[in-house]
């Protein structure tokens, strides 16, 4: 208890100092107040086609009069904004999907803990990406990171090169950042302390992910090189997965996970896992088609079809492979297969045909399958299979741009150039993520906030860290999987 109180105080101080430091460094408050005040925004909006600010008819009428006739460009801005926001909502919903998949794949005594982590990925990420991340990622700066727009101060009204407000673009990108952060929570489930996880979440959404993002989407050095990752197989998925991988290695496996006394640890609810996967699949229709960042009919329709069919192909290939090699069609393989297909199609989705998408998705499922088995053999405990789903399939998807991409892919152009650039990018991102994550987790470990104590893991992180259980009324038998008969 005593140590708990102290740990808590340190955490609060840390968070406070984070804010204070940031404010001082950026003179943030005043700038924010000036720049992002809704007056400005509202005026600008009025130049758009805005009919009425309030629902009440009385108030709305007078406001309309003196406005200039909206132009075609204004309309395009409206359509694009609606599209990007809707897509962002779908990506946001993916957090729910991740939370459910991860909750379904852990044991009942760890459920509250994993839900907390997913919930605070979102919450911490919302603050951190607003304060620091977005600026680092998209602000002008050097080839490695941006140096403006912290706390969204000084952002332009319309995002440069696009038609939509910077706020809309920011929100879309925030949803991606939260996704990247949440991937590792599944890898490291069942043994990571909550305090340490909060720090992890802060660092990833504020620093690691945005820097990688700057390289590729923020005009950084990989973008210059011609590296192509349309919706983030590498930027989002692999980055998250490599961080999780290092985390899992530093943490070590859950007790009794490997070795002679190993006990099976099946996930506690297949309905939650399946529901989560359905929601992720749905969310991906925001992730990929939304990354067009404009409502251009041809591309967004094509991307939607490709995304869907790759998921289907991944589910089928992984399920059939498991059936062939283990003897039964298994639900977890099917779910992870669909996700692997989705991750794989994420990079090339705008530049391939549906038929090629089937191939990419199906191979994504297969890559994932062997990836999970590889980690198992190496005794790396990836609770939900996220390293394989997001990391290995992400690498495959990034390479697929260089193979099938209509604009630079091997099979269409005969040139290895794009494939080479893709490979460079994959290694660069992997290296950066592994190194920074290693430093971060080692530091968290050094203060003793990383791995939960053995008794906490026996009792369950839920009781130990959160003083509660997920299902207080249900009799559960944590150590004995029970079939019927």
């Amino acid at each position, binding site marked *: 208890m005593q140590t708990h109180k102290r740990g808590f105080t340190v955490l609060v101080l840390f968070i406070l100092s984070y804010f204070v430091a940031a404010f001082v460094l950026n003179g943030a408050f005043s700038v924010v107040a000036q720049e992002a005040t809704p007056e400005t925004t509202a005026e600008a909006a009025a130049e758009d086609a805005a009919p009425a600010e309030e629902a009440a008819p009385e108030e709305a009428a007078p406001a309309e009069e003196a406005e200039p006739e909206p132009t075609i460009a204004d309309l395009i801005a409206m359509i694009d904004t609606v599209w990007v926001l809707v897509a962002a909502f779908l990506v946001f919903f993916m957090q729910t999907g991740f939370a459910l998949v991860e909750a379904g794949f852990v044991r009942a005594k760890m459920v509250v803990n994993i839900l907390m982590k997913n919930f605070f990925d979102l919450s911490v990420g919302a603050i951190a990406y607003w304060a620091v991340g977005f600026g680092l990622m998209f602000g002008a700066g050097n080839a490695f990171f941006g140096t403006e727009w912290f706390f969204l101060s000084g952002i332009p009204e319309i995002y440069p090169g696009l038609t939509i407000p910077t706020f809309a673009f920011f929100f879309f990108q925030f949803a991606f950042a939260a996704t990247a952060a949440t991937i590792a929570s599944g890898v490291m489930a069942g043994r990571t302390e909550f305090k340490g996880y909060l720090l992890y979440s802060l660092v990833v959404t504020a620093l690691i992910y945005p820097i990688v993002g700057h390289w590729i989407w923020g005009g950084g050095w990989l973008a210059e090189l011609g590296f192509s990752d349309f919706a983030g197989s590498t930027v989002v998925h692999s980055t998250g997965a490599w961080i999780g991988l290092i985390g899992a290695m530093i943490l070590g496996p859950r007790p009794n996970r490997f070795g002679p006394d190993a006990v*099976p*640890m*099946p*996930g506690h609810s297949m309905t939650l896992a399946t529901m989560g996967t359905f929601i992720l699949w749905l969310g991906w229709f925001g992730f990929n088609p939304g990354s067009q960042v404009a409502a251009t009919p041809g591309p967004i329709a094509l991307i939607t079809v490709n995304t869907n069919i790759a998921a289907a192909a991944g589910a089928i290939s992984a399920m059939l492979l498991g059936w062939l090699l*283990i*003897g*039964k069609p*298994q639900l*977890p*393989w099917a779910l992870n297969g669909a996700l692997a297909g989705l991750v794989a199609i994420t990079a090339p989705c705008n530049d391939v045909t549906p038929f090629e998408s089937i191939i990419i998705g199906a191979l994504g499922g297969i890559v994932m399958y062997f990836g*999970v*088995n590889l980690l*198992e053999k190496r005794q790396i405990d990836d609770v939900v*299979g996220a390293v394989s789903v997001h990391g290995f399939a992400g690498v495959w998807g990034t390479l697929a741009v260089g193979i099938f991409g209509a604009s630079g892919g091997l099979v269409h152009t005969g040139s290895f150039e794009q494939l080479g650039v893709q490979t460079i990018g994959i290694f660069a991102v992997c290296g950066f993520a592994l190194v920074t994550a290693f430093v971060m987790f080692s530091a968290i470990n050094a203060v003793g906030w990383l791995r939960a104590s053995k008794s906490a893991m026996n009792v369950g992180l839920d009781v130990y860290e959160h003083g509660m259980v997920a299902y207080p009324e249900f009799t559960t*038998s944590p150590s*004995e*999987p*029970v*079939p*019927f*008969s």
Partner: protein
Amino acid sequence: MIKKIEAIVRPEKLHAVKKALSDIGIVGLTVMDVVGRGRGSGVQMQWRTGVYVVDLLPRKLISIILSEENVNATVEAIKKAAYTGEKGDGVIFVYPVENVIRISTNEQGKNAIMYQGDIDERKKR
């Protein structure tokens, strides 16, 4: 003398056993969920990369407190209803009981385990 019968049977046989007991006039009983292992073998299960055997299979444990003279009839009824002839049909245990007290009426001993229309009343008729 009062005895206790514990019968461990397949879950899907619970309905049949319950009916058989009603038929002979056994009213009071208590059932719980257990998992167990006997002469049968387990079930093979899979989770991701691994195959494992679950050797404790679900059973229903039916426990009946009754007079010694009714033990045989009851055991026979259970045996018949729970029987399939394959491994895993279960076992029946008989234990001594020293006393019984019914909370609502404060009856003790044999009186406490008498029910309307039960096996004893039927015998009298």
